C-alpha cells in the first residue's frame, strides 16, 4: 500500500459522502462519520441496533468499497457479517476490524 493510497482512504469526506447511522428504514440517529477515523469512533458510540441494521443490509461494506475506496476493509467487514454477530458482540468485532485497518493505513502514510 502506498502512502498516497492510504491518505486517499483516510481523507475527510464531504457531507454527501459521509456515513449516516440509521436504526431502521428512514430513522436517522443524528450520528454520522465524515472519515474512516470518525467511523471507527462512532462504531463505539452508536446504538447496537444501528450497527445491526447497517451490517446486515451491507451498507458498511458498500461505503468502505465505494466511498472510501478500500476494498480490503470492505472484505473484512464482510467477514464479520458471516459470523452473524448481534449486539455488543457485533460492535466489538466491527470495532476490532475497523480499528486494525485504521492503524495499518495510518502507519502506511
Amino acid at each position, binding site marked *: 500500500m502506498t502512502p498516497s493510497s492510504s491518505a486517499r482512504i483516510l481523507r475527510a469526506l464531504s*457531507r*454527501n459522502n*459521509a456515513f*449516516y447511522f*440509521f436504526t431502521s*428504514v*428512514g*430513522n*436517522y*440517529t*443524528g450520528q*454520522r462519520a465524515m472519515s474512516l477515523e470518525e467511523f471507527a469512533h462512532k462504531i463505539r458510540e452508536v446504538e447496537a441496533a444501528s450497527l445491526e441494521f447497517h451490517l446486515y443490509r451491507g451498507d458498511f461494506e458498500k461505503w468502505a468499497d465505494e466511498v472510501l475506496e478500500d476494498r480490503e476493509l470492505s472484505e473484512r467487514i464482510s467477514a464479520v457479517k458471516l459470523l452473524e454477530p448481534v449486539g455488543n458482540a457485533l460492535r466489538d468485532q466491527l470495532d476490532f476490524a475497523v480499528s486494525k485497518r485504521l492503524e495499518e493505513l495510518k502507519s502506511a502514510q
Partner: protein
Amino acid sequence: MNKPERLFNISRFKKMKLKNQAVSLDALDWQILQAIQENSKQTYSEVGRQLGVAHSTVYDRIRKLEKNGVIKKWTVDIDLEKLGLNYMTARMTVYTDPKESENVAKKLSEAKEVLEVSMSLSEELLIIAKVLARDQDSLHSFIAKKVAPLQGVLRIRTSIITKKIKEERFLIEKK
C-alpha cells in the same frame, strides 16, 4: 327580480377582497365551492340548477374564485393501485437546527419524492413530510442520501404507512 338575477349581483364580487389574507365570500360563493368540491366534473349549468342561479353566474363566480386563488387548481384523484402502481407512503419527521429549518423545508419541497411539507413547533422545531417511494429500499435511499446530509438535519423519524383507514380533503360547509 327572479332568484338567479337576485343572486347574480356584481357588487357582491367587491366583497371578495383580501382581508388579513382571507378572501371574503358571500353565501353563493360558499355554495358553489361546496358543490364543485363534491363533484368538480359538474357543468356550470348543473351547479346553477342546484343553486337556482344562471350558469353564467356560476361561471363568473368560479372565474373570480380562481383569480383570487381560492380555487388553487383543478385536478383528479387517481387510484394508483388500480393502475398497478404500488407506491408506499411514509410520514417523515425531521428534527432540525432552527437556523436551518427554512432551508431544509425548501430543499424537501423541491424533491419529487416529497408530496407535502409542513412545519411544527412542539418541544423542538420539526418538519413533517409525506414521502412516496416505490419500496423500502428506495425510501431509505432517498432519506439517507438526500435528507440526512442536508445542513441542519439533527435526526429523522419515519413511519411507513401500512394501512390507510381514511383519507379525505376538508369539505367546506354551507355558510
